[in-house]
């Protein structure tokens, strides 16, 4: 698993990364009530807003963690956004991104550094 400073996690399988938001992020956000995911086949550059998660109070952007193309999205979290809070790094995944440059994955933060960032 790798992490971003924007509180996303990535799990690589071949050249496809599954992406979600971290437990820490879900606790900060509170109960989620709406999720908007990108279209399959859409292409994103690192840092662009690929998805939106919304709590009662606010909308929060989810950024593309790396350059790539969306090859799958999790319809389960669209119909039940609470899955993200209950199982953020499992059934609460958001989308799968085919990476333009698999090498860029290795440069992301590992778990130890991410937990230092969040102070956990």
């Amino acid at each position: 698993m790798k992490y971003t400073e924007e509180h996303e996690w990535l799990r690589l399988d071949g050249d496809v990364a599954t992406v979600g938001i971290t437990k820490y992020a879900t606790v900060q956000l509170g109960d989620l009530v709406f999720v908007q995911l990108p279209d399959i086949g859409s292409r994103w550059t690192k840092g662009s807003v690929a998805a939106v998660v919304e709590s009662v109070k606010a909308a929060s952007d989810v950024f593309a963690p790396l350059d790539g193309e969306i090859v799958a999205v999790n319809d389960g979290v669209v119909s039940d956004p609470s899955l993200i809070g209950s199982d953020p790094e499992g059934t609460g995944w958001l989308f799968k991104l085919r990476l333009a440059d698999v090498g860029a994955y290795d440069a992301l933060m590992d778990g130890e550094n991410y937990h230092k960032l969040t102070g956990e």
Partner: protein
Amino acid sequence: MITKSDVRAATLPLRTPLYDLHCERDARMVPFAGYEMPIQYAPGILKEHLHTRALAGLFDISHMGQIAVRSRSGTIQSAALALERVVPVDVAGLMPNRQRYAFFTNGAGGILDDLMIAHRGDSLLLVVNAACKIADEHYLMAELGSDCIVEREERALIALQGPRAESILATLAPSCRQMRFMDVQSAMLLGHDCLLMRSGYSGEDGFEISIPRDAARSIVETLLDSPDVALIGLGARDSLRLEAGLCLYGADIGPDTTPVEAALEWAIQPVRRTGGARAGGFPGASIILHQLEHGAARRRVGFRAEGRAPVRAGALVFAESDDQTPVGAVTSGGYGPTVEGPIAMGYLTTTASQPGTRVFAEVRGARLPLRVTELPFIRPRYKRI
């Protein structure tokens, strides 16, 4: 990925007498109107909201301003008449031990702040918004100072809201059972002189309670001994008031919105309107009185989204999905936990404001269909009889 939308206070934040209690009980504190206030506790906004509607929620609203107005001549009637110079509301007709919603208006007919006025027998107590309270106090001194004493009361203020509020408060003050909506009563709580007001801002029955600062913690802890009472933060306070169709000052009303535009005519009694015994005589009277008779060009309405995406403050509203010119905008919006869907309030050109009208809000570049709806979104449960 967490968008930092919270505005940091420029100076050292203030703390209410309940600050330590909030921290001990796992509040997430945020800067709000110059204070460090609880936005939520461990259960989170959704559960806090639903708890208030099902049982009882306890809110620290000590950041709000409590301003006493007394007549220099000693008669409360002259203080009430003086206050009528700054609000378009019947204050002189307010009976002892009753309270009433009001707003300060400006010369353009806009709203400088909204407030509650309580008649305490010997004085009027004004409860005003935290962000406005210093300006309000100076304004009142300038406008009423020649015949009134205007004095901030440094007391705590809590709200106990929800269907169990009465039975819980009655364990400390049995006489609260006799109060009805908008009644005011002095009562001793645990030996401390408090003021009970049967009102609130959640759409539920309940009370706002003014408490000496030193007694706030013990009274709150005693109320929290009931398993039906939970602490509720500002997040759920906002979603509760939105469902109840109540205005948030600075979002839904402000210096650029008149009471008629804001659909608050009900707060302007006939005695202050054209033809009334004390018609006009408040800032912006000519504009407001004209709008009361002829209507305004825009109006505050409710919106229900047809889809599931929340539509939030700032979203522009269009009559058609491909129109270039908006007919209005959303001023408050989010998810309503009790109505289980996105709800919003905002302004629309009056001609487009009929309930049932379909309009479109622009959200992240897309046009989402909304239905104009009557307010409130829930049936209020004030104790009117």
